[in-house]
């Protein structure tokens, strides 16, 4: 079983590399001069999608071998769930790709999947047993449907982002330019997190503090990055480790805040470096890639993804969720933060559809809504688990 678990990890690693290679080929496909509308047959794109399919198969291999090794669907902690979300993102991309043959989608969807897997890998990766509340077939049914729904909805973000990169005139400045650049900066922050976490983990950095928590009990906390902020009445107990001694309020999870500060710091440095070297806005760096993109088609892909993803999300995130909550927690709805954020996601996309269907919000506005929707999904995926305590905080 342990061997199977290690095979599983290798398969995920292979999938990661293949997605990376596939991205390069998709990038090649949109450079090709022959295919100005960036759809239809194209040798680069054919190779790209083939590698993507092999990568996806490899990730499926990861998923099922891990399932066999652990005896339960590997969607039970943050690493497993986010990895699965990335897999569904690739699946959603593949489906939409075969409907519209829009090559440029691969240039953006695959890197986002890559970044998601990298992000997931920063959480504890070991196979953990299921607590009683999770011991149900509904774990696989509910979580996989939610992840699939969210992933399909995320494709609309990818399409929306490409749309905006082409649509917004960077030379004019203004709010839209600012927000577009902010979205890209947000993505760079994730890179900053992955980078700093990886560097300190490879360097083997670790320190421990004892501190007094919000319930006034003494506890020990581990830091995986040098402590820029320390917990309430925190005492460093690891010799030779770094600490600024800057104490935080007991309600603040200082260890996580420390990680956030490092990520933002590294993210800002990365961003500034890119700006300094290229002497252009990050959004401007992507513009050559989207020059030939077809706005109409991107708009429809974005809308279509919402139409496909919304029912899947509703089914998994609300209906299956309620059925399982009734079985496991005695009530179908209990205003747990994760539940509330699933409702918020649902309401947001409901508003999206109403605005689009009845008020003609197409193109630019629709693209922005897709971006906001993705921010909400990411918030629910990550922040609700890490910041807001609730029944779903498993990781």
């Amino acid at each position: 079983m342990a061997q199977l678990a290690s095979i599983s990890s290798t398969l995920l690693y292979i999938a990661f590399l293949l997605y990376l290679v596939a991205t390069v080929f998709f990038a090649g496909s949109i450079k090709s001069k022959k295919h100005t509308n960036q759809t239809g047959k194209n040798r680069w794109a054919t190779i790209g999608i083939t590698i993507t399919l092999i990568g996806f198969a490899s990730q499926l291999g990861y998923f099922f071998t891990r399932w066999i090794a652990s005896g339960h669907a590997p969607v039970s902690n943050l690493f497993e769930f986010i990895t699965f979300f990335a897999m569904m993102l690739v699946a959603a991309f593949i489906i939409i790709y075969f409907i519209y043959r829009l090559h440029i989608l691969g240039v953006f969807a695959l890197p986002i999947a890559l970044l998601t897997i990298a992000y997931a890998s920063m959480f504890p990766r070991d196979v953990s047993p299921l607590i009683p509340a999770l011991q149900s077939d509904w774990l696989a049914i509910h979580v996989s449907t939610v992840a699939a729904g969210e992933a399909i909805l995320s494709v609309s973000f990818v399409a929306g982002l490409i749309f905006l990169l082409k649509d917004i005139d960077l030379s004019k400045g203004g709010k839209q330019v600012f927000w577009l650049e902010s979205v890209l900066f947000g993505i760079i922050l994730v890179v900053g997190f992955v980078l700093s976490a990886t560097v300190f983990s490879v360097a083997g950095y670790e320190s421990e503090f004892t501190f007094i928590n919000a319930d006034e009990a003494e506890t020990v906390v581990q830091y995986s990055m040098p402590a820029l902020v320390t917990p309430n009445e925190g005492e460093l107990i690891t010799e030779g480790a770094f600490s600024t001694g800057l104490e935080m309020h007991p309600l603040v999870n200082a260890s996580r805040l420390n990680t956030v500060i490092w990520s933002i710091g590294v993210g800002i440095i990365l961003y500034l470096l890119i700006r300094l070297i290229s002497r252009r806005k990050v959004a401007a760096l992507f513009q050559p890639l989207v020059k030939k993109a077809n706005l109409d088609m991107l708009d429809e892909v974005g809308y279509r993804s919402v139409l496909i993803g919304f029912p899947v999300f509703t089914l998994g995130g609300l209906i299956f969720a309620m059925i399982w909550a009734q079985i496991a927690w005695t009530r179908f709805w209990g205003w747990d933060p994760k539940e509330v954020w699933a409702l918020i996601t649902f309401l947001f996309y409901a508003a999206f559809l109403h605005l689009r269907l009845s008020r003609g919000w197409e193109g630019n506005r629709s693209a922005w809504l897709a971006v906001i929707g993705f921010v909400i999904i990411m918030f629910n995926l990550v922040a609700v688990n890490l910041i807001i305590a609730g029944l779903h905080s498993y990781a």
Partner: protein
Amino acid sequence: MSKLICKCGHVNPEGSELCQACGRTLTEKAAKRKTNDVMRYEGMARRSQTYHASVIDKVWNFFSSVKVGVWLIVITLVASAIGTIFPQEFFIPQNIPAIEYYEDRYGIAGKIYYVLGFHDLYGSWWYMLLVAAIGTSIIIASLDRGIPLYKALKKQRVERHDSFLKRQRIYSAYEAKGSLDTLNRLSEGLKKRRYKVRVENGSLLAEKNQFSRWGPYINHTGLIIFLIGAMLRFVPGMYVDEMLWIREGETQIIPGTDQEYLLKNEGFTLETYQEGDSEVFDETIQRTGAIAKNFQTDAILYKKDENAIAGSTDNITEVDHHAIQVNVPMKFDQFALYQTDYIEDELYKMSFTMDSKETGEPVGSFTVDLFDPNTSGVYELNDGYAVEISGYYPDFSGFDDGEPQSVSPLPNNPAFLFNMISPEHPDGEVAFVAIQQNLEPLGENDYEISFNGIETRDISGLTVRKDLTLWILALGGAIFMFGVIVGSYWNHRRIWIKTDADSHLYAAGHTNKNWYGLKKDIAPAFEYAGLDQPDDHQELKESKGNAKEEDESGTTREHK
């Protein structure tokens, strides 16, 4: 009521934008609106767009507006999000007043949160009002649109006026192609694509998946049923939420069942994963410590016989016997029992010995059931020795005026006043015994009581739930889901073809969404008929983000 009479002679109700017969635009205003907006409800008269005078009109118009609906959704969304900033009142410890909890823990922000009522946001009157407003909006907006749409789609004419065709996003005029043969070929091609085709007077109407237009109205119906189900929660008798704390070995009446059912706790089990259970888990267990594997109450369910006395546990019949686990509730009648909590190792029995101080040897031993101490009789030991309990203080807290006090009936810190009877002292000697405390209040004794062991047991916390609204919610949810799928995964597509005496052929197409799909769908039919693909007249302009799309809308697009 003024009617709108079209040039074709058809009489349309007031408020119509397009003639229901021929499709001509009827008003200046309609002519100026975007085709998509006019076509959304087939140019039909809608109550909300027609009447504005009375109060009822105004209320109707307010709730029928999608803009209002979207605002209601957005306000609910933002409010819901605010409710997750700090935990809601029902998640915080119940032993301190909420106001203190929020203020102590979250400072001034917590106090503001409490004062504004966000600590009980989802149960607040204004949140309920928001949900009610959304419900009203759903009903009125659906009626306002659904009924006219139904009427329009049920009686469509095949032949439409040229201006109607020209307005469509998919439109082309073909010279010298208007033959019967072309029309037949188009008809054949579209039928192959499963269009329902009607041909009249050289005109053709092909339509498919009209049912997908009903998706929104179906899902709105489901939502309303769901909301009604959620309201029924407050009808007495529909909903039971009780907690049953039951000790191992105990039999108790299940609250909420009208004393009809009883439960016996045969034993509570808590299991944790052990290292070596499965080698793949070892690393996690080493990292995080013990992980719970199972919470389980082995339970026997009894039903009271019809003529049994209320409150008694006699005359009962076993109905069911199995383990209640997390995710595996015990279901009976309309109830379900869930494993939701436990307390481990509550004191149950205490054993003592009565010792002679002189020899240090015990003269006998006895065991006190802390829940049922023998306070009226005596614990008979051997050879004329016996112990009486003359005072029992299950939750001993100290002395008040020389009297021992108990703060609760639970044996958290049991203390006893024993009377030790021996052949030498037939009236007994008095000893006060508590945990790590031995007093002789009436002078030096010859005998003493010493502690000889405890027996503990676990308490299962079971939630008793009855929810008669579930089936309505399930029905509403299923209808909603069905409607969403119907509306999302299918598209309503229509093609109009018209030929005239000068053998012109006009082709127009409309879909409620997914225009690429429409174009792909009809391409083979046009190819088969020897026609070029009809043009798509809406390519999104490069709006450069700053331009508002509404501004670039033309009424009738220019065609060559």
